[in-house]
């Protein structure tokens, strides 16, 4: 248990490494999804491009949105953005920092999908097989074929089993050509992304380090504050429920004493702890009545102070001492559940 607590504490203290972990998992999931996906080019003139480009561009968009959905901090960002000013001003730099860091992480899985797709080559082969330069690579002067017919033949390039244009242009030649273009695009894309990432990361210390430190601190603060508040409310709810239920049982016990002239069981000193916990309900009939009452008529959400012996209550001056809540354990574990 302590081990988990320590791991969570490590991740929480270094929240960035936790989010990087999620990023890495999504990138791996994206590669896995691509290899599991059964790519099936339609091999028809107008459908090829739509299918090929669709597979290239639609899943990254979905992965990008998924990256935002799975990021727990999106609700925190929305809340901070929409809250009224109240007694605390809003800092747009903090909002920008939170949005940028979420967007950067959400971009990784789509970038991995696009790179893997381009380096594999099937999508580009499918999408652009009708634009292969037949004059350069094959026999452009093939007789008896109209433009439309040529397009139909070229569209079958990705489907080796039904390809019938070997005299027009050899299948392997066309596939190699398209794959070469696709892989070149893929590597260029990866180089571009890596260069952008490098520039973004390395130019920051040169220009806006102080502003960055401030934004990072306050965005982390907002996150911690939200979690702490949720925890405080949960503890409060627990105590509230406990006292409410205790008062309910006490109320039942008092009612029964009043209504049935039960001899009130005095809790004497020699009775055990367990008897005290019975709260005055000590037989089957009473218990059944208590259960029925709990179901039919739940007590109001209002904890009243216990009845005082004098029956008057208000003593005026004497305020009860203010007890601050018990100091919280410093090693409480907080983590985003994604």
């Amino acid at each position, binding site marked *: 248990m302590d081990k988990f607590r320590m791991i969570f504490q490590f991740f929480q203290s270094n929240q960035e490494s936790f989010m990087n972990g999620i990023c890495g998992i999504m990138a791996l999931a994206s590669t896995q999804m691509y290899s599991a996906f059964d790519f099936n080019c339609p091999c028809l003139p107008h459908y090829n491009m739509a299918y090929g480009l669709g597979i290239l561009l639609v899943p990254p968009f979905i992965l990008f949105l998924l990256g935002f959905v799975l990021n727990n901090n999106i609700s925190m960002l929305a809340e901070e953005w929409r809250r009224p000013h109240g007694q605390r001003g809003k800092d747009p730099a903090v909002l920008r920092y939170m949005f940028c860091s979420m967007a950067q992480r959400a971009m990784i899985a789509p970038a991995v999908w696009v790179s893997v797709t381009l380096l594999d080559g099937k999508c580009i082969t499918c999408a652009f097989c009708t634009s292969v330069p037949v004059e350069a690579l094959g026999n452009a002067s093939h007789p008896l074929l109209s433009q439309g017919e040529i397009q139909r033949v070229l569209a079958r390039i990705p489907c080796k089993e039904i390809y019938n244009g070997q005299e027009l242009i050899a299948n392997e030649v066309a596939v190699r050509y398209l794959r070469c273009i696709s892989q070149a695009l893929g590597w260029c894309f990866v180089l571009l992304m890596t260069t952008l990432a490098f520039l973004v990361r390395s130019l920051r210390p040169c220009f806006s380090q102080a502003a960055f430190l401030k934004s990072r601190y306050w965005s982390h603060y907002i996150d*911690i504050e939200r979690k702490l508040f949720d925890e405080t409310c949960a503890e409060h709810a627990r105590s509230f429920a406990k006292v409410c239920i205790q008062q309910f049982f006490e109320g039942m016990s008092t009612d029964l004493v009043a209504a049935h002239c039960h001899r009130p069981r005095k809790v004497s000193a020699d009775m055990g702890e367990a008897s005290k916990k019975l709260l005055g309900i000590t037989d089957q009939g009473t218990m059944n009545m208590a259960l029925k009452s709990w179901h039919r008529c739940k007590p109001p959400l209002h904890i009243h102070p216990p009845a005082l012996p004098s029956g008057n209550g208000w003593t005026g001056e004497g305020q009860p001492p203010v007890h601050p809540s018990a100091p919280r354990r410093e090693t409480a574990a907080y983590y985003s559940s994604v």
Partner: protein
Amino acid sequence: MDRFRMIFQYFQSNSESVMNGICGLLALASVKMYTCFDFSCPCLPQYNRAYGLGIMFVPPIILFLCGLILNRQTLVMLDEWRRPQGHRKKDLDVVRYMCSSIMQRAMVAPVVWIIVTLLDGKCLICAFSGSMDPEKFVGFANVTTVQLEQLLAKVPCKDDELMRNNTSRKAVSRYLRCWSQALGWSILLILIVAAFLARWLRPCFNQDTLLQARHWSNYIDMEQKIFEETCCEHSRLFAHKCILHFFESMRQEIKLHSFNLPRQGEGDEGEEDLLQGITDQHQVNKLLKTWYYEKPPLDVS
């Protein structure tokens, strides 16, 4: 549990070993990437060289940039380089030391890629098959120039219909692979000798400057980590205090506006303290609404 603590402490105290770990992982990733990558030479006269040399040199640039991005020390070094002087003067030796150690580590994965590529041979065969001298190979000797260009370009593609049973293709392929592997092994040998000499001869030059630079670069790294941890800890305590103040102010407001009897019973003091004076549905709702509409100021004095 102690074991984990020890491992984390070890990593934290010796950030160099973390970086060496990342460096090793990148090198392994580079080999894996090469084996997973489906090398497919276009076998066309104008494209072969661009493709072959592109595959040999573009991924190393990417791996080098990745090595810089993944290394935490890059940011620390840039920060130290660009910071205003303030009360602490800057020592450029430390910055230079950090820079050189970052570069050395970032160069490992690209070099691994290039060597693996050369030892495999496919890239060089694809890039330079078109520049072969046809006189050396029987099958290409009596062919026209245009056809020669096409044929030589198709050498890397074993399954091409023209090349399927061509023995001269195998000869060209073996020749180029031999050169490629010789180049690969030579580069590996030169680099290892250079590394060996650098490590062996280093203590002879400026050892004390080196020790100082290494110490202070570790110090800067550690200082930044501890600063980040302290900020985290501080924000946690700040939030805790802020929320306590908020509950306290709500309790006081409720006392002012209602006629709640002060609690004087002995039994439930523990639980009711945790309730902080908020004891019914309306008060809880008011508290939650106030939390949203009017967050408390960031001031716990």
